[in-house]
């Protein structure tokens, strides 16, 4: 059994490498998100991949959604998508199915299926990092008791001040219902009922006057730093950057973090699929993911890599306590139900906008 497995894997390796050796493309086009994130990717595995295979990595700007893939104008070879979009693209036939044996075992031999976080493996690809929407607060605003639970967002009497929230239903509905003591596992079941949504919006109503809406993630950090708000929702990587790298007095509440997976897929239009999968294998190796985590505070989607996370490469800060995937942070973490959002997006937005409009009347 074991031997056959190994033989099979070897065969896949040969298949993956052979075309690269025979007709290796000069370069691969990887669609990704730019900024500090792309920089971390380049240092962690774009450059090492080129060094190992001689294949250059060119990047293309991607800003989410499945439409760019549908148009297929850019001839991308690999695309870095959120899990919700990845699943939608996969279901729509915009991504190629992932061949067996693409993924590498962990250094200790743990097979991928057990090493990756639950929900990481799909028919069309694999998740590589976890990023998280969290609440951060301004330490200067709460010199006494500091907020430490999601519910404190909805208690302006205890924790006064404005709150900066992203202007979309994502994460705040989960937090609103969670504040009633609903267990994490039951959140989406309850949010699926009229009663659950009503309760969630009732909570939001309680802090309507205190909310400052943001759309650009950078805005969340700016509002906190400039003391326009005392609490804000945002992406954990940016809060980390502000607090640790730039030394701002912010702190993240990890309770109720809403984490999402970011996944690799190969678009149907790619004509260098073999090299593309070879890249996916390289980029999702334990050491690649662990190395990326020394540049940015997004958690590796492999347990073996999460355990190896060391210090921030520039500041020397230990990264482990800042990762969404650290054991202690996962206790009450909410895994964003990508499927649920994918299927309910239109109705949720409609309801959310109606609630927004009701307040401005």
């Amino acid at each position, binding site marked *: 059994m074991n031997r056959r497995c190994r033989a099979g894997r070897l065969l896949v390796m040969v298949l993956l490498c052979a075309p690269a050796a025979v007709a290796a493309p000069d370069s691969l086009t990887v669609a990704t998100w730019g900024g500090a994130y792309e920089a971390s990717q380049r240092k962690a595995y774009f450059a090492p991949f080129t060094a190992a295979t001689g294949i250059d990595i060119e990047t293309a700007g991607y800003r989410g959604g499945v439409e760019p893939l549908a148009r297929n104008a850019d001839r991308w070879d690999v695309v870095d998508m959120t899990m919700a979009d990845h699943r939608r693209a996969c279901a729509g036939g915009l991504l190629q199915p992932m061949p067996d044996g693409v993924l590498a075992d962990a250094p200790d031999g743990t097979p991928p299926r057990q090493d990756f976080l639950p929900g990481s493996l799909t028919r069309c690809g694999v998740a590589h990092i976890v990023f998280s929407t969290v609440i951060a607060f301004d330490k200067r605003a709460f010199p006494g008791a500091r907020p430490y639970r999601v519910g404190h967002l909805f208690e302006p009497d205890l924790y006064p001040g404005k709150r900066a929230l992203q202007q979309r239903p994502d994460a705040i509905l989960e937090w609103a219902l969670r504040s*009633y003591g609903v267990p994490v596992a039951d959140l989406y079941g309850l949010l*699926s*009922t009229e009663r659950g949504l009503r309760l969630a919006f009732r909570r939001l109503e309680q802090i309507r006057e205190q909310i400052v809406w943001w759309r650009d993630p950078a805005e969340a950090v700016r509002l906190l730093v400039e003391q326009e708000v005392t609490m804000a929702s945002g992406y954990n990587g940016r809060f980390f950057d502000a607090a640790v790298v730039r030394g701002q007095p912010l702190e993240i509440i990890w309770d109720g973090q809403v984490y999402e997976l970011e996944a690799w897929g190969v678009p149907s239009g790619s004509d260098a699929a073999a090299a593309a999968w070879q890249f996916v294998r390289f980029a999702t190796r334990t050491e690649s993911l662990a190395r990326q985590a020394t540049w940015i505070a997004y958690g590796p989607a492999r347990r073996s890599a999460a355990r190896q996370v060391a210090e921030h490469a520039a500041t020397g800060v230990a990264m482990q306590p800042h990762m969404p995937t650290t054991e202690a942070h996962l206790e009450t973490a909410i895994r964003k139900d990508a*499927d*649920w959002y994918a299927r309910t997006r239109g109705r949720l937005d409609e309801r959310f906008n109606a609630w927004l409009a009701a307040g401005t009347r």
Partner: protein
Amino acid sequence: MSTVGDSGAVTAGRLWSVVRGAAAVIALGLGVGTLAALAADAFVYGILWLNDWLWISPRSRMMAGDWAWLAAATVAVPAAGGLLVGLLTRYLVPDREPQGPADVIEAAQRGHGRVPPKGGLATAAAALVSLGSGASVGQYGPLVHLGATIGSLFGRFSRGAPETLSCIGIGCGVAAAIATAFNAPIAGILFAHEVVLRHYSLRAFAPITVASTMGYVIATVVLEREPLFRVEDAITVAAWEYLPFIGIGVGGALVAIAFMRSVIAAESAAARVPVPEVVKPAMAGAVLGMVALWLPDVLGIGKEVLRFSIIPGAFGSAELALLLVAKLAMTALCLGFGFVGGVFSPALVIGALFGALVASLLGPVLPEVGNLVAVFAICGMAAVTSSVIGAPISTILIVFELTRNYDLTTAVMISVVFANLVSYRLYGRSMFDKVLQARDVDLSLGRDQLVLDRMPIAPYVSEDYVVARRGERCEELRDRLLEADAGEAQLVAPNGDYLGTITLGRLLRKMERDGQRTVDRIAVYDRAALRENASIRKALTRAERNIGALVPVLAREGRRLVGVVDQSTLVRAYRETLHSIRSEEHAA
């Protein structure tokens, strides 16, 4: 090994038998516990999967919200599920009578410990379809029965005393199923003893504990399942607040009685509906689906309703009352019209709604109650459920293990105790006992009566008695009786038919006072005469009012006399039975 010289061999032998006994206990507990836990888990997650797949669960309904046919599916799925259940019951379930906890209790109480595997599996399949397609029935009854089926099989194929081991195996299966479903091992152990075995012996306790722990370990460690209902809030209860919990207990008992009566009323109503049995569940399913279009909360097990009931302000009073009535009616409809499932989960939902209703009615009078909705709802849940299943101690333990909250558990204790006091007086120990009573199995008489009921008198029938013939002279019979040192004679016709009994006293009196010459008109027909297939229990009740010290025993049909049973023999049989029950219950 031997350290004590002469007695070494004895010690080693005894040690060996102790080790073997312990190994058997562990093997039974581990085997039954593991299998029952896996079966229970597969059952529970099978239901969840079907609910997601068939647009029953709120999440799947929300995700299909854009789909034009969702309303049609809401009616069609329970109806189609009902039809399938009707067919399964008709063609697969033995005697077309789905089994449940009542049958498990009967098997354990009668002491034979047989839970037929065919009936068990067919019932589980029908229950899976019922629950999967959204019927408003419970999942724990089928789970308990499934566990018991597995346990009974283990006992039957073991060496030694198969009947006793089957009963213990049943306890193990039940305990493991409950421990797995609720992540509550202690409640599993107590449930098996309180509801099924109804006695405590170390011999049963040890393997049941092993099985229950195994169920817990498999659920939490191996499969990493979340408990089905968890309360995270820290709850504190003030002294005066215990008063309303008494009220919830009493009110909960009345709700429970209404629930149990409705289920039975629906059953008899269904029997009067002139359509084939096969389509009755489908009819109930269609009605349920139509109600669900307007009140989706009535579908299925109602996990979301339970959760909402402990959130302050999730429901208005009118909404709670409406949903309470609707859930009760739909459950009665589904169970009465042939969906297969239990009463535990609907009782939880109905009780929670009742508790929340009390809290919301008290709210305007006592503002503090507003924050206590969770406590009220959980007390209501426990009060109604414990009355329905007749398990106060297990219910308290389930609450304790799920919440790990001492204050809440003490509040629940008060409600549960008062609920059981009231429902026991007004209705009976439980729904299961009521079902068994309808089958002439009265558990309130005690286990000894059931065991005696199962023991035939045949081994105790004696052919050693004095026969009197028609036309025999009185003096002659008197002399023969004195000769045989007997107190009575049986008058028998030439064809062997029993004609009556003549006691010595009566014989002498008739000779002296009335001057009777022959025995013919002295005999009195003993109406307490038994058939030869009668049970000891029947013999004992007959012996209370028979003539003389011997009870005549007749053939299965006709009046042919086959022997007599001596009252003293019956007393001995009774004592022996009691002794065997006691030794089973006190065995280690």
